[in-house]
């Protein structure tokens, strides 16, 4: 068993319990973590909050149709569905990667039509795709990864590497990215730390809406908890967050409100009630 590039434990597999493995992986004190994802979760969403992103009648071919949703400032909206039920293309549409055929998208009440991702970014929409490879530059240092989305705020024409490093250092400290060097090549970081860098890209000049696709997939338990904590903090700071996932645990661990998609349509909504993995699966 390895952690942070060092061997920390060796032993025959039959002597290892799941709890012991987790304890070795992330240190003691996280034994309750698994429970919170599998038990009942109490959703609480304040409908009086200000809507940030609103969508009406959105449709794109066979991917999804008649989508109406809104996400409010200071809440996490979870969108759950099986693979291929349209939630992933929907998330890409909100970020301007795909163009919808029908429907209206509003950011803070203003109708928007994103021709590309740059327009979505400038309108205050941020996106972290499910595949880290498709949003990070593995051969570039951490600081260039964190600055790429906010480069024009740092510099109009000439680059300011010192400012970029400063911003990256701040994020590395705040998100506890390991190793804590802004010049480390991104490819040398662990998966969980890469995911934190992916989040860090959007945090210096926070967007209005943050869309996360599978934010904790394939991460070790400790990093998962870190990411959950970061997302909760962002929500408390007033960001509107959308979490899209095919794993019920991910949606349950993060959301204040949950939409379930099935075959390209929203089939049910859970607000201010107690839900469990079983109820989500039954709805999907």
């Amino acid at each position, binding site marked *: 068993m390895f952690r*942070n*590039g*060092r061997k920390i434990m060796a032993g025959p597999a039959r002597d290892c319990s799941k709890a012991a493995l987790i304890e070795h992986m992330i240190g003691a004190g996280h034994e309750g973590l698994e429970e919170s994802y599998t038990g009942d979760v109490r959703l609480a969403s304040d409908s009086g909050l200000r809507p940030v992103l609103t969508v009406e009648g959105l449709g794109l071919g066979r991917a999804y149709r008649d989508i109406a949703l809104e996400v409010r400032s200071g809440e996490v909206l979870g969108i759950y569905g099986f693979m291929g039920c349209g939630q992933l293309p929907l998330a890409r549409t909100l*970020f301007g*990667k795909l163009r919808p055929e029908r429907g209206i998208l509003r950011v803070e009440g203003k109708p928007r039509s994103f021709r*590309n*991702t*740059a327009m*979505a*970014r*400038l309108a205050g929409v*941020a*996106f*972290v*795709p499910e595949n880290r*490879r*498709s*949003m*990070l*530059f*593995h*051969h*570039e240092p951490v600081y*260039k990864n964190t600055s*790429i*989305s906010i*480069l*024009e705020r740092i*510099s*109009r*024409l*000439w*680059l300011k590497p010192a400012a970029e490093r400063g911003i990256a250092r701040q994020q590395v400290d705040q998100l506890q990215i390991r190793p804590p060097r802004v010049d480390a*090549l991104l*490819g*040398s970081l662990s998966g969980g730390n890469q995911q934190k860098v992916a989040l860090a*890209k959007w945090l210096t000049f926070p967007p209005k809406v943050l869309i996360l696709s599978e934010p904790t997939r394939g991460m070790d338990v400790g990093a998962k908890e870190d990411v959950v904590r970061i997302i909760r903090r962002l929500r408390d700071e007033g960001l509107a967050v959308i979490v899209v996932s095919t794993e019920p645990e991910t949606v349950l661990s993060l959301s204040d409100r949950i939409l379930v998609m099935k075959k390209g349509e929203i089939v049910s909504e859970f607000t201010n009630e107690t839900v469990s993995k079983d109820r989500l699966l039954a709805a999907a």
Partner: protein
Amino acid sequence: MTASQINLVQSRGRQGAGAWIKSRMRNIAPFVTLLLLIAFFSLASPSFTTIDNVGNILTQVSVTAIIAVGLTFVILCAEIDLSTASIANAAGIVVAYFTLQESYVNIGNVPLSGGLAIALAFLTCSFLGIVNAVGLTLIGIPSFIMTLAMMQIASGISALLIRGQIAYKVPDLVATLGAGTIGGIPWIVIVAAVLLLLGHLVLTYTRFGRYVYMVGGNREAAEYSGVNVKLVLGAVMVISAICSGFAGMLGVAHFGSAQQNEFDSYLLDGIAAVVVGGTSLFGGRGGIGNTIIGLFVLGVLNNGLDHINIDSFLKILIRGLILLVALVINVYAQRFRATAVE
């Protein structure tokens, strides 16, 4: 030092020099090639290492250098431009077309002022670059095919304007920059050096340059980061066309005439200079520094082969082989990098 730090240092030491060379092969290999070529030709021919000949080499690579500046941007984005030489030819012919020629040259004979002729030539190559950009980004034609079509289109424009004749007159400014000297140094060498420097500054120190590297390094990631990828790709195609056009105008003055198919060999030379220098064909790695080394490798090779006793028909084959070796190194350098980081 904690135990983990010591571990780290030791593991780095074990990977050692081999890993260091592997990860920097892209920069080391072209440089070593250049040194070997210089050493070889110095021993083989006494006339090679003279001040005059160094000047010759610089002058000989200047036109290629101007084309290669724009091409470096394109290849850094993992695209290709096959229309550089044709656009150079077209721009050179346009500038001659709008200049008053001798009475026996029966083309346009539109006697515009020099400035206006130059402006029209720049307009022509910019427009052709924009057509490349639109084809690549808005329509979605792969750059390889799009610029192949543009190669033919630009040749067609040249053919229609020049009609098989040879024009000799170009505006004074173009004639000075292309064929004149200042204090013994050819203007065209100075122009090439300035453009290389400018290209380096833009690529290394500006926001646009960063976008070029990031789009080349991982296009999908650039898009998910909210970078306007199509705008960057379009811009590099236009930059390449403008550099080619400029090279074409100066080239016409440098060679002393404007005619059809005058720049044909520069298509391969331009691409070879960028790739031999070590800029990655897969995008995101390399730069003007690499291009300069590549230019010198080609320049020394072409010039050196003239100084030694060798079958002149063999020279073509040797150039091809050198390019092949460079391509092999280019691909391996990419693979070593990939294994070094994963």
